[in-house]
């Protein structure tokens, strides 16, 4: 991740947000004008008070009731007209924010799928999901409540000040100076509150992690009788969180009440100066009263700020994290004017290929190998030998750091994604299934396949009886991540999915998890059918797979150290022979 956007100031992050999510800035000016206009309602009351007091109640000719009624009715009509303006401005704000955020969320989602981090750093997936779920949600929460409040509050302060200017500039200037002094104090104090909120967030993260552990680790806690130790630990972090939250609440209370004190002081100054000097400035009693009412309008926006500061911070942090993702360059891009591969089996060639992850040493050193069209290759080696990286390069899930991978003499980097995915299918170790039916999961390999085609695929792989044993056959729902099926059964469905996609080159990472022997037989036979009549590269974890291959590539320390048929290698006394002996001992 680049550190660049992490350092963006809040305003810079906000500007970028408006660039990345155009609907947010569309019509923004009109919206703000409407908000300002709508906020004018607040001003009607002080103005009407001033006018009714000055002109009707204090009319030297006695109280002018008819005039007061007339003036009051005009004010009422204006207020109800303002209802529509206010509603329109609120809705425009929320619509722009929600539409912009939805676009931003989809944009981030698409971008993440184009990056390799999702499958290279799989442990970070949970964190990355937050970029399209909780981060936009925190921005939305702020926009719906605090953001709208802040816009309206700012409009309210500006309007109040503008009206003050009209009533009497001398007094208005004094109020402005007061507001300015308070604003400086507020900004300083707000930083303290911000730090307190940061503390709270840290404590929350800590207590969530501890509670999460206690709950998901419950069977272990029970098995080892560690209930009271666990509860003590949870209590300790929760009490820490309580102290941080209470402290922040206290700071907020102080800041919140300071707005009242400030308003009180300003009111006192207004009365003092107004009474002493107002007459000289030609100020009427009504005008001074209007000032007192206007000063109360300055309190609420400050208090809104206190209430929404935490939200604003979370939202700004969310914006920065999203921008970090969007700033990440796509590491394996779809070529412009790419080549479409011919519809036939092609040789796969690695020439001088090296690979390293951005953070580490070389995982593969100088790999050169040619896989003939139609051959069955088994790739073996210990964990960390580079065999998984090898197959990821062959499918262009990653691009080599140096050297080139070619399919039928065309560099993979030149082949269009569509053509490449037509030609090469990779079946990962974990057969990942989506939370839908068996049929839909198989169709993922060939969108638009008919039920009959899917059924036929199961039959062709000799899995018809397995399918028939399921409660709803093809329409059986597999549950979240395929949880209703066993690991081996998920692998079966993944194999059918690859079969129906009908690639020329099949790349298979054999599952390591222990499965029922009966299922093991099914898997083996399905894989056999699947690899017939096509080129296949299998990362083998089982002896029988290596035995059945045309050629075995043995990886060790990021290099191909041996290659040849199973029989030749098994007797050679090398790396493969050692692996072989290991297998023999475990299957007895």
């Amino acid at each position, binding site marked *: 991740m680049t550190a660049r956007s992490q350092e963006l100031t809040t305003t810079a992050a906000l500007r970028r947000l408006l660039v990345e999510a155009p609907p947010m800035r569309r019509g923004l000016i009109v919206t703000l004008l409407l908000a300002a206009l709508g906020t004018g309602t607040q001003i009607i009351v002080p103005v009407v008070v001033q006018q009714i007091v000055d002109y009707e109640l204090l009319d030297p000719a006695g109280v002018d009731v008819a005039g007061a009624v007339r003036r009051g009715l005009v004010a009422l009509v204006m207020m109800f007209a303002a209802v529509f303006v206010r509603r329109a401005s609120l809705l425009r704000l929320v619509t722009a924010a929600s539409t912009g955020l939805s676009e931003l969320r989809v944009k981030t989602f698409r971008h993440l799928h184009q990056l390799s981090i999702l499958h290279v750093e799989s442990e970070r997936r949970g964190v990355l999901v937050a970029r399209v779920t909780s981060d936009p949600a925190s921005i939305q929460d702020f926009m719906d409540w605090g953001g709208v409040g802040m816009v309206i509050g700012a409009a309210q302060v500006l309007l109040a000040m503008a009206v003050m200017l009209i009533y009497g500039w001398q007094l208005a200037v004094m109020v402005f100076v007061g507001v300015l002094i308070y604003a400086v104090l507020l900004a300083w104090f707000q930083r303290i509150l911000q730090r307190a909120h940061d503390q709270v967030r840290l404590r929350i993260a800590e207590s969530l992690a501890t509670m999460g552990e206690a709950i998901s680790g419950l069977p272990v806690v029970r098995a080892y009788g560690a209930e009271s130790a666990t509860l003590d630990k949870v209590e300790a972090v929760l009490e820490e969180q309580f102290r941080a939250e209470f402290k922040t609440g206290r700071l907020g209370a102080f800041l919140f009440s300071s707005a009242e004190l400030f308003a009180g002081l300003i009111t006192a100054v207004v009365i003092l100066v107004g009474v002493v000097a107002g007459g000289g400035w030609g100020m009427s009693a009504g005008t001074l009263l209007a000032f007192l009412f206007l000063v109360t309008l300055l309190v609420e926006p400050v208090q809104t700020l206190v209430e929404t500061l935490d939200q604003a911070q979370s939202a700004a942090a969310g914006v920065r994290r999203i921008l970090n993702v969007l700033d990440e360059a796509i590491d394996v891009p779809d070529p412009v004017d790419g080549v479409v591969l011919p519809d036939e089996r092609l040789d796969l060639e690695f020439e001088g290929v090296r690979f390293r992850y951005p953070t580490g040493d070389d995982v593969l050193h100088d790999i050169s190998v040619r896989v003939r069209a139609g051959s069955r290759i088994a790739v073996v080696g210990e964990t960390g030998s580079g065999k998984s990286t090898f197959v990821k390069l062959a499918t262009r899930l990653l691009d080599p750091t140096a050297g080139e991978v070619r399919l039928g003499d065309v560099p993979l980097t030149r082949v269009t994604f569509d053509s490449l995915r037509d030609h090469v299918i990779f079946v990962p170790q974990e057969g990942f299934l989506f939370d839908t039916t068996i049929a839909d999961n198989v169709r993922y390999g060939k969108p638009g396949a008919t039920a009959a085609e899917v059924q036929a695929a199961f039959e062709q792989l000799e899995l018809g009886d397995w399918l028939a044993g399921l409660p709803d056959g093809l329409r059986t729902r597999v549950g*979240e991540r395929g949880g209703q099926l066993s690991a081996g059964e998920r692998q079966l469905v993944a194999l059918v999915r690859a079969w129906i996609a009908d690639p020329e080159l099949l790349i298979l990472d054999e599952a390591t998890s222990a499965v029922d022997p009966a299922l093991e037989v099914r898997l083996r036979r399905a894989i056999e059918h699947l690899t017939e009549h096509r080129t296949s590269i299998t990362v083998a974890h089982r002896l029988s797979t290596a035995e059945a291959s045309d050629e075995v590539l043995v990886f060790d320390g990021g290099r191909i150290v041996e290659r040849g048929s199973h029989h030749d290698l098994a007797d050679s006394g090398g790396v493969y022979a050692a692996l072989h002996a290991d297998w023999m001992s475990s299957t007895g």
Partner: protein
Amino acid sequence: MSVPSSTAPSGLREALREGFRLIGTFIRNGPVSYALAAGGAALFAAAIVAAAFVIGDVTDSLILPVLDEGVSSEGLLWPAIAAVVGVATWKAAGITLRRTAAGWLQFRAQTDARIGLIDRLLRTELRWYHRQSVGDLLSVTETDAREATFILAPLPYATGATLLLIGTVVMIFVLDPIIALVTLGSLGSIIAVDIRGSWSSFEAFQDVQRLRGNVSQVGHESFDGALTVKALGREAVETRRFEAASEELRDRIIDVNRVFSTYRVIVEAMLSAVAVLVLIVGAFRTRAGAVTPGDLVTVAYLLTLLFIPIRIVGFVVWDMSHALAGWRRVQRIHESAELVAYGGLDHRGDPTGAEVAGEAVAFTYGGDEVILDGVELIIPPGQVVAVVGPTGAGKTTLVTLLARLWDPTSGQITLDGRDLRDFARSALPGEVAFVAQDAFLFDDSVAGNIRFGTDASQTDVDQAAALAGATSFIDELPDGYGTQLGERGTSLSGGQRQRVALARALVRRPRLLIMDDATSAVDPSVETQILKGLRDAELPSTVVIVAYRRSSIMLADEVIFLDEGRIVGHGTHAELMATTPGYAQILEAYEVDAVRRAEENSQP
């Protein structure tokens, strides 16, 4: 994802009734902080009324005489200023007291609710626990416990606001009953509209929550399957799927805000209108000589001050509905979670393996499906026994019962002739150690994970790690035993996690060690070494392992062969091979397949 809508109150009336009951519960749990907070709110309310009087008084006795009639301000000025500043300080003090005490009330209730939940969960039957989704339990302790207590933030304010409203109306009655009646009627209708609006928005908001869950579900699933998505080139399809979920959420958010902002602007306009209405009525009353202009200013000022307090009533209804939904989910755990019952037997810690026996043991999950039935077994002290059987035979269930993680539906399991259910809460872990396939490690050091609640010495930890085949990789970790493992131990590989988990069991020197496929991710040769080590070490343990590899099974003294919830064979490997056809079938599945393939190949 949980389905929160089912726990939300279904009608406004119901929400109000239950809401007040919930509030009552919270107040009883924190009477002092509530009293302080409500006191602060009342103080604030009184200050507002006082402020209005001060402004009215200042108008009549200072502003009008000086600016309108040209009277000298001598002697009038400073008392007025002092009153204004004094009232503001009074208000600030009220706010500080209210918010501070309300913060205590809310955060304390949240902390207590969470501790209560975790305490309850730690004591529940695992059988109940396994029927729940861990994600749901987490979201109840995290989100629902927080939301249930949200109501406590505006509650004292609302109490104060109610007092303020009453105070205002009483005060206006004193000034002029006609104006008071107009005010009372207007404020009453405003509150009614506000409550109705809050409730409608809340109902719509439930839907937004559901759709948020939906977006997050699609996101999680798609990212978890990222490799498959990419391998099949389906990024565009996934993006469209996510876009559909995202846009549905967007539309619903806009809908909610349409309802919400409509009510909001209407209520705000009504509040302003009341001030004007009072002025109009006041003009009549002034002419009639019933009130002074100063009185009228007091009333109008007071009404503008009511602007925020009166809205709090609407917020309380919103928060109350929210809190109720959360609180019901919290309560559901307290009510449904079945607690484990313990006996009084202490652990004896004999230095020998335990004798394990099962008598007519049966187990079901409550449905029709029988998981275990009529299981009879005796395992002599110190023996190593392998449990073998096809998927779904009940292997994991059986060993889970042996560790008393669950209880049998009928029949009993004994350790040295003592029923497992008669042991005291802390006694059984001293006798039995259970190692699951899924090696759950905690965010702690390696040594901390192995000790986990015991005070084992470093020598004991070393020995346990050595037996578990973990020494070599632990030595290579940056800080050895002191290395922090991170959340769920993700910095280790699956096989390494399993070995640490095994060491955690061994360090307790259990009299019965149960391993449920606990070395599945360990390389076969290493696994064999570990199992041989366990067999040869002078452990005071009886060992029961659920195993899938032939090499592991052959290391056991005896094998229990399970099929469809019954023990169909119990004896040495050789005996079972000879007497139990199903057993032979399982172990020979590879060979059968190899033979079949050879036959097919030989046919022309």
